[in-house]
């Protein structure tokens, strides 16, 4: 009889935790989105950490491509684009490389588990007047297949998902 109560109590606790987890997660996600009409992507900065130029350019281009796909409600402007000057509710995306580990494609293909390439980029979304709207570190990884530049694609996908989760079309 005692065992029955123990099992019943454990089952109830387990059930409550299972139900509460996703709900709490959903509440956390249900934050109010920032209203914006356009996003201007600044060039990647890597003052402290050495990143090959090809990676910098690939990150920038992949980011613009992925934002065009996943955050299509925002008009995406490039760094220096004069057309963005008078856009209301413009959000600026500043990206700074905070971690980079260049792996080896050969090592990945030979060992499967070693040679991963990873990059961590600090993404800071600000308004035109400099007010910080959102700050987060986003990382990109290539573990098993693909060349090292694929890490930039992985980062861009995650960063654009971050934008679509936290921003909404203004008006």
């Amino acid at each position, binding site marked *: 009889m005692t065992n029955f109560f123990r099992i019943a109590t454990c089952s109830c606790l387990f059930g409550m935790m299972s139900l509460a987890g996703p709900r709490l997660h959903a509440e956390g996600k249900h934050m109010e989105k920032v209203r914006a009409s356009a996003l201007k992507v600044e*060039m990647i*900065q*890597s*003052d402290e950490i*050495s*990143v*090959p*130029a*090809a990676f*910098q*350019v*690939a990150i*920038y*281009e*992949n980011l613009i491509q992925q934002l065009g796909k996943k955050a299509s409600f925002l008009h995406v*402007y*490039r*760094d*220096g*684009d*004069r*057309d963005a000057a008078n856009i209301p509710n413009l959000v600026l995306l500043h990206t700074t490389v905070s971690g980079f580990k260049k792996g080896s*494609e*050969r090592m990945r*293909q*030979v060992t499967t588990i070693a040679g991963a390439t990873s990059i961590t980029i600090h993404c800071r979304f600000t308004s035109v007047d400099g007010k910080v709207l959102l700050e987060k570190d986003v990382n990109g990884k290539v573990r098993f297949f693909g*060349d090292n*530049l694929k890490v930039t694609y992985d980062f861009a996908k995650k960063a654009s998902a971050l934008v679509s989760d936290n921003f909404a079309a203004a008006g």
Partner: protein
Amino acid sequence: MLKTLSVIVICGTAMMASSQSAPPNETRSSISATNVRQQQRPTKSTAIIGLDGVREKTQGTLNIEDEKLCFVHSESTSQIPAAAMEDVITGEDSQRVIRGTLGTLSMFAPYESGRALSMLRSKLDSLTIQYRDNDGGLHGAVFTMPVGTAEPFKQELIAQGAHTTIHAAKNANVDPFSQVAGREKQ
């Protein structure tokens, strides 16, 4: 039977790779500032990313015409004016000798010979360009090309009005792939 077949495949590919990845010494040594003009002829290249209207990893031909960098591929041409280039940087990279569908299929080769095949890689040069469009928007493009062809392209583009943040003379003894953009702003 399978063992013999695998050994034959590996040996054959190794020979092919060594012939591709190690260009003759005279080819390497002949590349200098003096023969930049010779390199204006079209060079086979792959546009990795960044060219408008061109899919990623598109193969084509790269050349310089009328102060513009032209990438010709399947009956269409993409052009970047040299004067609009803010930064031209060369680097080194490598790629699998056997790639694409055949490279993927080689993973299923017997006795893990696919892994051995992926060790065979050929060297190549990369050319990274940052340029501005008519609205001032910053673009970037990355090309790969045969070993020894990127630096003459860079020099020719600089001669025709392009800018660079890293000069070849300053970095003669530095691994070009580790060159970092923006270090030495002009």
